[in-house]
């Protein structure tokens, strides 16, 4: 395996976010090629490539597109999920910063394929810098005739609106995102109907992750086989891996799916000096954690699934021996409590409860029998909540207990800060304090 | 005279009885205390600051097998508070013609507002007089209490009352009631 810069290939170009730079490196050719094909042919190529959603669930993109009913006389919509908020995930925003045109081109191709004349890019509101870049890219694409009326003389029209969220992790859930985009509270919708049948404004809608769409132009340009030549059989292609935590060089590493974590860690320069890996999470806090024993695991959908976790967003967080698992889990639960939309009982009340108890453990005041209670409560959320946020909230604790039960028992006596002094965990250079 | 010893024995019983303690009760001149847990007249208790414990929930009335209790609740308003929390018992009646002293009402009371005293003198020559009203049932104001209506102790919530955090009326409560008294006299 190796690093495979495709999306990131030209990020070192000082103007990589400008259309001139993008075009210089073959930008928008894929769109022109697509417009010469029928929409179904475009869907066919994406289907063949085996591209899977990069947002977390890993649903095959081509299949998703093909679910949209054709010639139903209704307006169709493409909605880009760029609400990247999962703790640990940080790949879509760098992508939109450095290479927004790949996304815009992907949108144009995707919209053409699903016969949508309206696309929306839903970007979380906390990142005005990324929003500026995407807004600019959209404007440049309009100016060059890649968006708007009669694109490149094909007769295909597409309007793209850049839409900012306003601080709600739940809007990363596709139906909640649609409600939010309709100007409502971002609470998930009852499925069915699925968005492909009745999504935005009750019309057929495809919701794709930003990275997914940005990967499409290269597939159209180079073909499905080229894409499949990277990665594994079930997880073809390249992916942005954002390695963070106690590593020497945290950052974006674009590599083929199935690249072992140990290899990615090597690219990232290994763990920081004098530290050793304690636990790691392959793709956002919503997927169960792993230990150093699992470091050689290939970063693919299927291999991680077999290991009892998930690829998720493909953004590994690496924590070293100075880290308090109790504190880490408590913070994640505080996050889920804060971000629970409140619609369903298990998630709303369960996160409130677990967080309250975990906070006692963080301060060394937990009672051992309460560990069993938290475990039960997690079980009462998992599989019973309205959407996946509840399931996600029920993940960190049982995952941590699997490997670090002793540390939780310790937390009935000693606070997290006493067991794991924060000064050791922080990454500040002495000089900067 | 074979019966003589028998007769003597019999007189012996009488004779010995002369020295036994008499069991006749000299009621009403002498009132003998009842057993500790005797089910006597009810009492509506107060919190240590004088606020009533009754919340007017009617559970006593519902529990009563003889339908002897009638309660009407009402809302505590600012400046017109009788109990901590939102609700108090505006009307509270026990009909002692009906009451069978079973004590189920006491068990039903969620705030320990209703208890039974050992008072057993519950007779009268008028039926209406045997319907006891709230003022007949309320526990008297003890030293340290002030007569409601008055506010709760500053910064306290109803839960603090139930948690037993109140030990007596505060200076503010005394002042408040005093002020109301003066105002009323002024008018």
């Amino acid at each position, binding site marked *: 395996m190796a690093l495979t810069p495709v999306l990131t290939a030209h990020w070192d170009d000082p103007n990589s976010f400008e259309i001139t730079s993008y075009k210089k490196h073959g930008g928008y050719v894929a769109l022109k090629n697509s417009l010469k094909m029928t929409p179904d042919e475009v869907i066919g190529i994406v289907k063949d490539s085996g591209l899977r959603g990069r947002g977390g669930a890993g649903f095959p993109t081509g299949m998703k597109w093909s679910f949209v009913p054709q010639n139903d006389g209704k307006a169709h919509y493409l909605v880009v999920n760029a609400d990247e908020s999962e703790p640990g995930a940080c790949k879509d925003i760098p992508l939109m910063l450095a290479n927004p045109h790949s996304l815009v081109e992907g949108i144009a191709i995707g919209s053409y394929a699903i016969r949508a004349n309206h696309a929306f890019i839903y970007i979380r509101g906390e990142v005005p810098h990324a929003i500026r870049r995407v807004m600019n890219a959209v404007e440049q694409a309009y100016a060059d005739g890649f968006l708007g009326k009669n694109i490149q003389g094909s007769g295909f029209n597409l309007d793209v609106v850049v839409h900012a969220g306003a601080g709600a992790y739940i809007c990363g859930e596709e139906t909640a995102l649609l409600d939010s985009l309709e100007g409502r509270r971002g609470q998930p919708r009852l499925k069915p109907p699925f968005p492909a049948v009745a999504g935005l404004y009750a019309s057929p809608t495809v919701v794709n992750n930003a990275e997914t769409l940005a990967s499409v132009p290269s597939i159209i340009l180079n073909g499905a086989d080229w894409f499949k030549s990277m990665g594994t059989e079930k997880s073809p292609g390249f992916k942005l891996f954002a390695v963070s935590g106690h590593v020497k060089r945290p950052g974006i590493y674009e590599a083929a799916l199935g690249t072992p974590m140990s290899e990615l860690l090597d690219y990232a320069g290994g763990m920081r000096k004098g530290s050793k890996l304690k636990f790691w999470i392959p793709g956002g806090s919503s997927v169960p954690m792993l230990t150093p024993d699992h470091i050689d695991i290939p970063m693919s959908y299927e291999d991680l699934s077999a290991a009892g976790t998930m690829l998720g967003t493909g953004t590994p967080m690496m924590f070293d021996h100075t880290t308090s698992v109790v504190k880490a889990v408590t913070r994640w639960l505080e996050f889920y409590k804060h971000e629970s939309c409140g619609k369903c009982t298990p998630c709303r009340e369960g996160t409130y409860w677990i967080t309250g108890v975990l906070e006692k453990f963080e301060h060394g005041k937990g009672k051992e029998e309460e560990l069993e209670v938290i475990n*039960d409560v997690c*079980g009462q959320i998992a599989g019973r909540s309205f959407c996946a946020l509840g399931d996600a909230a029920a993940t960190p604790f049982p995952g941590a207990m699997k490997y670090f039960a002793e540390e939780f028992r310790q937390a009935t006596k000693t606070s997290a800060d006493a067991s794991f002094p924060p000064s050791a965990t922080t990454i500040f250079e002495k000089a900067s304090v | 005279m074979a019966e003589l010893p028998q007769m003597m024995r019999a007189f012996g019983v009488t004779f010995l009885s002369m020295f036994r303690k008499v069991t006749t009760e000299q009621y009403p001149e002498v009132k003998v205390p009842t057993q500790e847990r005797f089910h006597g007249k009810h009492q509506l208790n107060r919190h240590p600051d004088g606020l009533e414990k009754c*919340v007017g929930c009617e559970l006593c009335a519902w529990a009563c097998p003889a339908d002897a209790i009638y309660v009407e609740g009402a809302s505590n308003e600012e400046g017109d508070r009788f109990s901590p929390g939102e609700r108090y018992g505006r009307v509270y009646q026990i009909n002692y013609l009906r009451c069978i002293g079973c004590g189920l009402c006491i068990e039903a009371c969620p705030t320990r507002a209703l208890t039974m005293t050992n008072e057993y003198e519950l007779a009268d020559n008028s039926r209406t007089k045997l319907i006891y009203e709230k003022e007949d049932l309320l526990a008297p104001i003890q030293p340290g209490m002030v007569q409601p209506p008055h506010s709760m102790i500053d910064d306290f919530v109803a839960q603090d009352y139930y948690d037993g955090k109140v030990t007596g009326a505060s200076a503010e409560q005394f002042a408040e009631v005093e002020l109301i008294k003066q105002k009323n006299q002024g008018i």
Partner: protein
Amino acid sequence: MTLTSDNKQTNTENSITATIDGIQVQVPKGTLIIRAAERMGTFVPRFCDHPALAPVAACRMCLVEIEGMPKPQPSCAIALTEGMNVKTQMTSTVAQEAQAGVMEFLLINHPLDCPVCDKGGECPLQNQAMTAGRAESRFDIEKRTFPKPIELSTEILLDRERCVECARCTRFSEEIAGDPFIELLERGAKQQVGIATDEPFNSYFSGNTVQICPVGALTSSSYRFRARPFDLVSVPTTCEHCAAGCSLRTDYRRETVMRRLAWEDPAVNEDWNCDKGRFAFAYLKENRLTQPKVRTKNGNQVDALWPDAIDFAAKGILQAKGKVGVLLGGRLTMEDAYAYSKFARLALATNDIDFRNRVNSEEEQDFLGSVVAGSGGSVTYADLEKAQNVVLVNFEPEEESPIIFLRLRKAAQKGNLKVTAIAPYLTRSLEKINAEVVATKPGDEAKVLRGLKIAQESIILVGERAAATPGTLSAVIEIAEKTNSKLSWIPRRAGERGAVEIGALPNLLPGGRPVTEVSARNDVAAIWGVNGSDIPNKPGRNHSEIIQAALSGEIKALVIAGLDVMDAPDPQALGQAINAVDFVITLGIQENSLTRYANVSLPVAPVTEKSGTFINWEGRPRPFGRAITSTNALTDARVLAMMAESLGLDFGLQTIEELRQELSSFGSWNGKKLDKPSVASIGAANVSVGSAILSTWNLLLDDGALQKGEEHLAGTQRPVVAHLSAKTAAENNLESGDKVTISNSRGSIIIKLEIIEMVNDVVWIPSNNHDSKVKSKLGAKEGDVVTIQKGSF
């Protein structure tokens, strides 16, 4: 086991077979699991689910196990499909544990205040906590608390601690009432129901949210802490307010009505009622008359015994026999109205009887006699729900018959109903039923109707205000016939349709029989046990004519019953008429200005203290029994029977059974009906700057007599403003927010102006709110010309 919506043969194409708890069930396609289970006797616990609301599956209480699905599924949101194998908590530990888990979650933050909670004793959370809850809580950290309660409106209170976030209330307000004034605010554990800072929950249907709240989070100010559910006696009743005919549940304790709830009636009010029907019953206690009173020679009113009062009254009217007018209100039960109808004809030998204590005309009389009386159920609620086209003429549904509004809204929400309203402007409630308004000046209705393209087989609903503008009702009949449309007349009061049916009108006898028809008179006479010639054969005087005749001395005595003087078309004239006649008998429940004028004032029973029947606008009888039995209040019919007896008549009608028996013997009238009216329209008045045509109607919540004593309800009245079009306002130099004086020779009303999009030259004001009292202050009606002027005098 077969479960179908009715007893018709099951259509196998539209039904599916599945298994619930091992029992095979056959249900119509699309039946939700929770309903199917319920119909086979298994109650799956639920909070957010409500049969009238769209499923949301938010509370997760109703989770069940479905074979082949990895996770438990919400039974409230999943329809049963062919061959599905469902296991509820009865047979599945997965379902049982899932439900227990959700219950535990619901209780962690729920306060332990059941003893002081109004819902305690009838609370689904309480009940389900007993079946699915743990005995002891494992939750030992601090509960979420909120200050309690907060006022959503003067009538509705919210205790956020008790809320389980099921969103029934907010969904009801949005989906059913169309008044999204309450919403879920905040997020996650802080999520709570609330209102915007500057707009309270003043919906006419707000009370329903209290009823459907599955916990004690929503309570009403009027019932708060007044009684516990287990201490109430519940009886089914019919609402006495409007002509909708809602089924209600009246809860009373110790002979006092504590609250009223909507009683489910799928054919009429479904699960709902309006706030007036729910909360406006305090009048039952206000100024109740309990004792007959007679006026002595020295002019004082004194209490009298019943026999003396009856004798006195009988003597009084005997003196005036043939010169007695009978003025009734629109709120009598059919049985009582019938007694008046019979009493007028037999005891008073007159047809001078009219129940229309409101704007009325001869045209309307003929309309009622020819089109309404005896027409049965020409249009029903179900018809409205299925309708494609509905035309509203002088009828504002939400204000004048709110349950019709809900049905129209339900149909409009489904998207297949088009409502066209002949009205001066598009009101917010018309907007909520997606109505299209043909902006019309009062007086121009007939012209507009004739010029309108109305689809064949529409439904035309015409309100009582149509009587105010000559020619409107004639045009309505004409258009209905031309377009083959169904026509229905919507009165505002509960008793009006019944009064039409039993002939409490000068030209009608019971069953739509014209007084002028000899066979009609003979029919009636046979039942009454008299000769046909005993029944007067000439049409009598109507309300206005009776008053005129009283003023001119042609009428010497008045029998006035169930009538509020402020409702009269001209309260001033009514007052003068009462002064002018020699003898006045009033029958009513309350002491008021009328009873104080009476020579004999007789107390009668309010609806809660008698049995009776209201005929709703559909023509559907809505019988109800007596709720409160311990009072000795007499019905109007019983009092009349006593009076008739005192006059030596064989009147009958001593009991409600006897009355109903007699009423049922009338049967339908197949003879000649009254001629349909054909009155020419005179069109809207011409106005110049400084004047305008008056448009007005009664708002649902106003200062009506039956809403007295309920301050909390009054607090939710709509704002009192006048409406003008921008053009008319500009011509008169008026701006929004200005005070405008609306006046005529009689008096004036000063009111705040709000400029809206509406027909020019028309000023709209509410009929009976605060200072805007059209009848008593102006004595005017819709279509009259009034002066408009900036500011106050």
